[in-house]
C-alpha cells in the first residue's frame, strides 16, 4: 500500500447502551478517509443514526474509541467543541433557527465561535447560498421556505463553518418527493468537490452515483461494507439481500 489519504474518522469497537438497557451499538468499526463518501443504510432501529451522532458527540458511548480529525472523543467539553467546529451536521428535521433570517442562520456560528468579522462572513454566506441555489431567500425566515430550500440552507449553514467532515442524518427523509432531488444534487456537488461525507440515507441512486462505500447496519452491527457497485448488484450477506429487496 502506498500512502493513502488521511484518516478522518476512526471508530473502533463502539458500543452503546441506552439508559433503559437497550444495546444500541454492539461493537461497530468504521474508517473514513479524506474525500470519501460513506453511505450508511439499514432498517430503522439498526443504530445507524445513533452511530452517526456519536461522531460529533451528540450521543455518548460506553465502550470503544472514536478519533475524529485526529482528536479522540472524550468527556472533555472543550475537545468536543473543537471536534464540532470541524464537523458539520445536517439533520432530518433541518433544525434551522426559526427566529433568525436565513443569512443570520449561516453567520451565527462563524461570528460567535470562530470570531470572524461579520461583513466577511456575510459575504461568504451569500456565496454559499448562491452555491445551493437560494441566494434570493437570504433575508427571509426559515418558516417562509419550502422543505427542500430549508434543507439546502441547513447544508449551507454547516458549510459556513468550513468543516472538514460533513455528517448527514437522513437529510431527505422529511422532504416531499419532488424536493428530494434538489437536496441530493447539492450533496452530490459537495462530494465532487472532495468533501469527506458520512451519509445515513436510503437513497439508492445517490449511493450508487456518489458513495465510495456503502455500509449496511442491522441490530447495532455492521453487516456488510462494500463499494456501491458490489453492494447493490451482488450483496454477500443474507441480511443485505433482504434489506435491498425491501427498499427497492
Amino acid at each position, binding site marked *: 500500500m502506498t500512502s493513502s489519504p488521511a484518516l478522518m474518522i476512526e471508530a473502533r469497537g463502539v458500543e452503546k447502551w441506552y439508559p433503559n438497557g437497550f444495546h444500541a451499538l454492539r461493537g461497530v468499526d468504521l474508517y473514513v478517509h479524506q474525500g470519501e463518501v460513506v453511505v450508511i443504510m439499514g432498517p430503522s432501529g439498526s443504530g445507524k443514526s445513533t452511530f452517526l451522532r456519536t461522531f460529533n458527540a451528540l450521543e455518548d458511548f460506553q465502550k470503544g474509541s472514536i478519533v475524529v480529525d485526529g482528536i479522540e472523543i472524550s468527556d472533555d467539553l472543550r475537545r468536543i467543541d473543537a471536534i464540532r467546529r470541524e464537523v458539520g*451536521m445536517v439533520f432530518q*428535521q433541518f433544525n434551522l433557527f426559526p427566529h433568525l433570517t436565513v443569512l443570520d442562520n449561516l453567520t451565527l456560528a462563524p461570528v*460567535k465561535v470562530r470570531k470572524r468579522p461579520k461583513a466577511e462572513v456575510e459575504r461568504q454566506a451569500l456565496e454559499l447560498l448562491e452555491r445551493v441555489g437560494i441566494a434570493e431567500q437570504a433575508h427571509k425566515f426559515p418558516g417562509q421556505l419550502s422543505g427542500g430550500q430549508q434543507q439546502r440552507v441547513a447544508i449551507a449553514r454547516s458549510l459556513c463553518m468550513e468543516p472538514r467532515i460533513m455528517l448527514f442524518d437522513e437529510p431527505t427523509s422529511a422532504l416531499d418527493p419532488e424536493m428530494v432531488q434538489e437536496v441530493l444534487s447539492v450533496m452530490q456537488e459537495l462530494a465532487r468537490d472532495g468533501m469527506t461525507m458520512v451519509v445515513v440515507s436510503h437513497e439508492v441512486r445517490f449511493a450508487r452515483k456518489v458513495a465510495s462505500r456503502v455500509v449496511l447496519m442491522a441490530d447495532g452491527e455492521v453487516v456488510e461494507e462494500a463499494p456501491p457497485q458490489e453492494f447493490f448488484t451482488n450483496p454477500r450477506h443474507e441480511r443485505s439481500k433482504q434489506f435491498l429487496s425491501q427498499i427497492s
Partner: protein
Amino acid sequence: MASTAPLVVRANPLRRLQKELFGSRLDGLISIALLAALLAAGLGFFRWALFQAQWVVLSANSTLFAVGRYPVDQQWRLWLLTSLLALATGLSWGLLRAFPGSGAVQPLWPRNDRWAAAILAALALWRPMALQLTLAIQLRWWGIAALLLFARWASGRYGPAIPHACRRLIPLLWPLLYLVGMVLISGGLGLVQVPPSEWGGLLLTVLMATFAILLCFPLGVLLALGRRSELPLLRWGSVIYIEFIRGAPLITLLFLGQNILGFLLPGGLTPDRVWRAAWVLTFFAAAYVAEAVRSGLVAVPAGQLEAARSLGLPVPLALVHVVLPQALRVALPATVGQFISLLQDTTLLSLIGLLDLLGTARTVMANPMFLGKSAEVYLVLAILFWSCCAALGLGSRALETRLNPHSPSAPQA
C-alpha cells in the same frame, strides 16, 4: 340565494344585532330585560358618581396618594423624574414607530397612536382640573404631557436621521434612567436623603413593582435553566426553591421577611423594611416567572440545541442565541401575566404596614374627615391598577407581534 345572505348580515351590524338579540319572541324578552337591567345599573352608577359621590376625599389627598409623605421641599426631584420619564417614553414611542422592525411598512401615526395621543392630551387637561390642583401644578402636568407628545412627534419625524451607532445606544436610556430615578428618589450624590419610610402611594407601588419585575425576570430565567440542568445539585436546588416559594402564600413570606431577616443578619446590615419587602416580592415572583420560562423552554424542540451545539456553539452561547430567544417568546404572555399579578400583589404591602396605594387609601379612610368615603377611594384605586395592568398587557402584545417573524407585518415573498 343562500350565498349572499351572510354577506348582507355582515354588511349591516344593526341588522345582525337585531337578529342576534330579537331573533324570536323569547330572545326579545330576555334582551329587553337584560338591557333594562344594564341601563338601570349604568344610570345608578352615574347618578352616584355625579351627584352623590364626594370626590373631595381624592382631591384633598392627591399628593398623599401620589407620593405618600415624601417631603414637600424635595418633591421637585419627583417632578424632574416624571419629566425625564415622559421624555424617554415619547422618544422610544416615536422611534418604535419610525422603525417598525423586520422591514415592515407602517404609517408614522397609525390610528391607535392618534387615539392614544388624544386620550393622553385629554387626561392631562382634565385630570389636574378635576383634582382641583393649584394652577402651578396644573401647568406642570400640561408641560409634562406636552413634552411627551413633542418627543413622540420629534423622534418619529427626525429619528431616521440619527446615526445607526447612536440609535443602538438608545435602549440603554431606560436602565440608566432607572438608576438616575433611584438616586433622585432616595437621595445621595449631593441630594438630601429621603428614607424609604417616607415614600408612599403610587410612587411606592410603582417602585416596588418595577424593582421586583426587573429583578425577578433574570432570576426566573436562571431558575428555569437550573431546573432543566443536568447537574443534580443545580437542578434540585432550583426545584426545591421553586416549589417551596410556590407552596407558600405571599403574605406569610412577607411577614417572614420582615421578622426573620432581622434575626439572620447582624444589626446594621438588615435592609430597611421597604427593601426587605421588595426583595421578598422579587424572590416570590421569580419562582413563578421560572415556571413560565420553563414552559417556554419545553416548547423549543431538542433539535435546536443539537443544531447549535453541532455548529460548535458552547452551551452558554447556544442558550443565549438559539434557545432562550425562542423560549422567551413562547413564555412572554405567561410571564407578563406574572408581572401583572405581581403589580397587584404589591397591595399586600399595606398589610405589613407599608403605605403603598392601598395602605395610603386605608389611612385616608381612617381619617374621621373622610369616614364613609371608601367607595370613591376604592373605585379610583381599581381604575389606577386597571390602567397599569392594561398598559403592561398592551405592551406585551405589541412586543409579541414585533418579535414574531411570521406576523403579517413581516416582509413576505
